């Protein structure tokens, strides 16, 4: 690698290159049409083209590449869930991140720095013990630490001994990490495009042609295309898109807000969160403190921001690190989450034979970008849902086989 870099640097006549080719004209038909040009859709396109030999693929993106929830999440990669199917699935997701830069030849800046979740109540400690045991059983690195352990891992935390939010202990998840969200999406997009996948930006799906139990065509604002298989990975619009195909999903939209501070010198070398304060902090590679939390308290399909939610995030952040009190906020934003009743995603088959779902990512599936893409690609290519995805099927609701991850997602991580 260093030698190649040197050779490249000394070479004459450098040609400019584009990571992503400009949007081409739509073909009349594709073997696979992927709805949604975010991380998940692009990853699926990459795995289809790289490992399954399916290159006649179109990725349709309503706006610009990775501009939805891929750009709005807070880039936490972790596998500290509660149920075995979830832990196994996200464990594979973390392992894909560990090798992603090599796989893609694209630096996704994965930093496996560990995640520490604080408990300020006995209830939180109890749930941590359960999550730690489940995680150990499923082979992830996770343990409960006491207050002294918290101080050792993160000396900056305000322990608030004797106060209202005294830190009782924490859940230390050494596998946790963070990566650069744009790089993940662009890495997958670049390699998928090299393999022949067509990425269509500014291409909005407006409807479907359904005949019997199959989707035959996808209608867009740029024309109608024939589709062999359709994969839906549309983030906050999943409910709406599925409705166009005549599928009702158990999804409700809630906004999720986050914000970043001005850049500071590096001091926070872990991902820090609090399950009781509904706040988490991570320092980005630019030095900004990214502050995130739970969703808005009521259902909404808009990315507007609110002062109360921002105040709640700031309150939590200042409780954990009071020395941030004079740090200025730089940016704030919101995205639309598609929340399922059990806070687990919906992946796999739909009532239509050739229409596949990758939806319900709730408080966001950045951590699952690789694994969802890989496993959904396998699903589409083989027309069979792999075992690791079976527990996430849409029909789990009618079987009352829910995967309750409320405690490990929305507020609890």
């Amino acid at each position, binding site marked *: 690698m260093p030698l190649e870099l040197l050779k490249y640097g000394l070479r004459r006549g450098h040609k400019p290159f584009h990571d992503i080719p400009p949007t081409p004209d739509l073909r009349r038909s594709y073997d696979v049409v992927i709805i949604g040009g975010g991380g998940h859709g692009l990853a699926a396109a990459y795995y289809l083209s790289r490992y399954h030999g399916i290159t006649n693929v179109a990725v349709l993106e309503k706006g610009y590449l990775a501009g939805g929830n891929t750009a709005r999440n807070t880039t936490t990669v972790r596998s500290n869930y509660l149920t075995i199917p979830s832990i196994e699935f996200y464990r594979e997701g973390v392992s894909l991140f560990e090798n992603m830069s090599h796989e893609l030849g694209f630096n996704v800046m994965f930093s496996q720095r560990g995640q520490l979740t604080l408990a300020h109540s006995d209830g939180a400690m109890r749930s941590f013990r359960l999550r730690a045991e489940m995680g150990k059983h499923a082979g992830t690195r996770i343990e409960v630490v006491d207050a002294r352990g918290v101080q050792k891992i993160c000396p900056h935390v305000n322990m608030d001994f004797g106060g209202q939010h005294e830190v009782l202990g924490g859940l230390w998840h050494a596998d946790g990490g963070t990566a650069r969200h744009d790089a993940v999406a662009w890495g997958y997009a670049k390699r998928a495009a090299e393999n022949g996948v067509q990425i269509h930006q500014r291409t909005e799906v407006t409807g479907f042609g359904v005949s019997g139990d199959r989707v035959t065509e996808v209608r867009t604002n740029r024309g109608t295309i024939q589709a062999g298989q359709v994969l839906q990975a549309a983030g906050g619009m999943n409910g709406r898109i599925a409705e166009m195909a005549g599928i009702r999903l158990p999804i409700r939209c809630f906004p999720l807000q986050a914000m970043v501070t001005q850049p500071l010198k590096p001091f926070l070398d872990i991902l820090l969160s609090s399950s009781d304060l509904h706040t988490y902090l991570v320092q980005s590679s630019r030095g900004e403190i990214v502050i995130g939390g739970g969703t808005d308290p009521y259902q909404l399909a*808009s990315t507007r921001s609110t002062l109360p939610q921002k105040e709640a995030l700031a309150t939590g952040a200042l409780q954990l690190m009071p020395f941030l009190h004079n740090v200025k906020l730089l940016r704030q934003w919101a995205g639309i989450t598609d929340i399922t009743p059990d806070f687990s995603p919906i992946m796999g088959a739909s009532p239509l034979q050739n229409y596949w779902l990758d939806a319900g990512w709730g408080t966001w599936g950045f951590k699952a970008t690789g694994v969802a893409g890989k496993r959904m690609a396998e699903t589409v290519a083989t027309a069979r849902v792999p075992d690791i995805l079976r527990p996430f099927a849409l029909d789990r609701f009618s079987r009352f086989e829910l995967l309750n991850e409320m405690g490990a997602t929305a507020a609890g991580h």
Partner: protein
Amino acid sequence: MKIMTCPVNGPRNISEFQWLGPVHDTAEATDADLLNRLFFAPNPMGVLREWWRHTPSNTVFIAERDLTTDEILRSYLKGSDADRTASPA
């Protein structure tokens, strides 16, 4: 600050209210209805009728809110004239 009108206490700060979720038809008959009621909550790109509670006075009422604009269109008590004329959820 966002304002919600409580049918009993008048316009109040939204932080005084708790969102309780969409108004459902409570007369479930079949298993499918029950499944629907439990898991398939309405998620329209438009107006939703939903239960809210004014927490200091414990007033539970219905509000109609546009889920795309977050505009609260009207609010009324269950069983009031406004409720009887409202379209079903």
